[in-house]
């Protein structure tokens, strides 16, 4: 099975330097929606991972590296240039587990040899400030998670909230990209049909 398209949503927390501890960027969650053809049928696969305060922060880094091990033919991101990629680089480079960080960078490097689309480019690019507002404008239901809510979920070990949010964001990114395409009607119909099934619930 080759993955045709994947959308990625990530969440991170910046930890400022404190005493002897250098500043770090923690990758606290990631979700990936894969859209692929298998034996002529369009399939979807939604997965997410998160790390909270009592977990090893390298776990999500390793999970994301595994998720990108087979690079998708097309990778869809939101605000890739100025938010997603810089935060992933910061998380990898400041990880205590340098091997995990290097592995994520290697898989990212391979993923970027394929087609990468920043969905935000069609919505103002670096000026596209609010994913929520743009998703709502296109009639896509999406409940945002503020930085404070993310920090609280990380602090209290609430994996479900982080994963559910990122999974919804990955799905909304895919639907937003579809909404901007002229030939996407059959894909939109198949996506709607999949969303109505229990399979559309993120695997935790």
């Amino acid at each position: 099975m080759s993955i045709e398209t994947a959308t990625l949503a990530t969440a991170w927390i910046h930890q400022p330097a404190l005493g002897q501890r250098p500043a770090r960027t923690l990758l606290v969650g990631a979700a990936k929606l894969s859209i692929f053809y298998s034996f002529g049928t369009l399939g979807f696969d939604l997965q997410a991972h998160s790390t909270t305060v009592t977990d090893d922060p390298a776990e999500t880094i390793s999970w994301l590296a595994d998720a990108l091990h087979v690079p998708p033919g097309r990778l869809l991101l939101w605000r890739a240039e100025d938010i997603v990629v810089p935060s992933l680089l910061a998380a990898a480079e400041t990880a205590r587990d340098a091997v995990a960080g290097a592995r994520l960078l290697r898989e990212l490097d391979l993923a970027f040899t394929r087609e990468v689309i920043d969905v935000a480019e069609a919505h103002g690019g670096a000026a596209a400030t609010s994913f929520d507002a743009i998703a709502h404008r296109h009639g896509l239901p999406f409940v945002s998670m503020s930085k404070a809510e993310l920090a609280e979920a990380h602090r209290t070990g609430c994996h479900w909230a982080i994963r559910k949010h990122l999974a919804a964001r990955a799905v909304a990114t895919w639907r937003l990209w579809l909404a901007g395409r002229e030939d996407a009607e059959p894909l939109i119909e198949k996506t709607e049909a999949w969303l109505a099934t229990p399979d559309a619930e993120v695997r935790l």
Partner: protein
Amino acid sequence: MRDPMRGPGSVRAPGSILSYDIETISPPTPDGSFPPWPTHRPVAIGFATAWQVAGGWSFDISAMVVADGVSEADLVREADRRMGNAGVVTGYNSRQFDALVLRLAAQRTRLWSLKALADHAAANRFGAEHADLADLYSSHGRKVGLASLCDEIGIPVKMSTSGGDVAALWEAGETDRIRDYVMEDAVATLCLFFAWTAARAGDETLVTRPMAALARHIETTPALHHLHAFVDCALIRWCRPRAMKADIAAALERMTAKLKRQEDERAFAS
């Protein structure tokens, strides 16, 4: 032996780059040919400045039109100030037109202490401090128009108007359209400079990274909305994902070096 790091072949990313373009008016010639350069008076100038800071690129894009309290002398003074602050000045046919027109305008307005402008107007054609892209692209042979190069590379140019329309716009008092046009040309010239530098150095990151940053600058600066065609142009669309790829590859290189260092330290300690 000639130092390979000198001259226009010495391509490295300069600390700061000033791209500029001027628009002029001149009395028409009886045969309709292009009037001799001394008869041209500058009425507008566009600046696109790029500089590197903390591994990224920053930009300042602006224009001045001789109107509403701005005189020809102000325009010339500003050109001199900006040239003095730039590591490299670039333009299109700037060595044989723009700089000469500005130098003559300085003398006409009795401005004698504009050293940076004087230096650039007298720049060595093979020197690295002034990159006249019309010369460089034609290898100092027969020049072609800016648009013909930009069209091939996928840089938008002459979008709203063209140089031949400036006199009519000036007569009609349409200074805003002249301002937009001269700014477009300065930005197109800057893009062409990045393309030239990358091709000359054989390093695509010298075009991908600054072009991606330029796109973000235009997107996030409401006053530059009229330059949005650059964000959607073929060259920038090609550059943006590759700039991210270059950043990832650089980070991977740093991490690989870090792991190697740690391995060496462990081996030394054991």
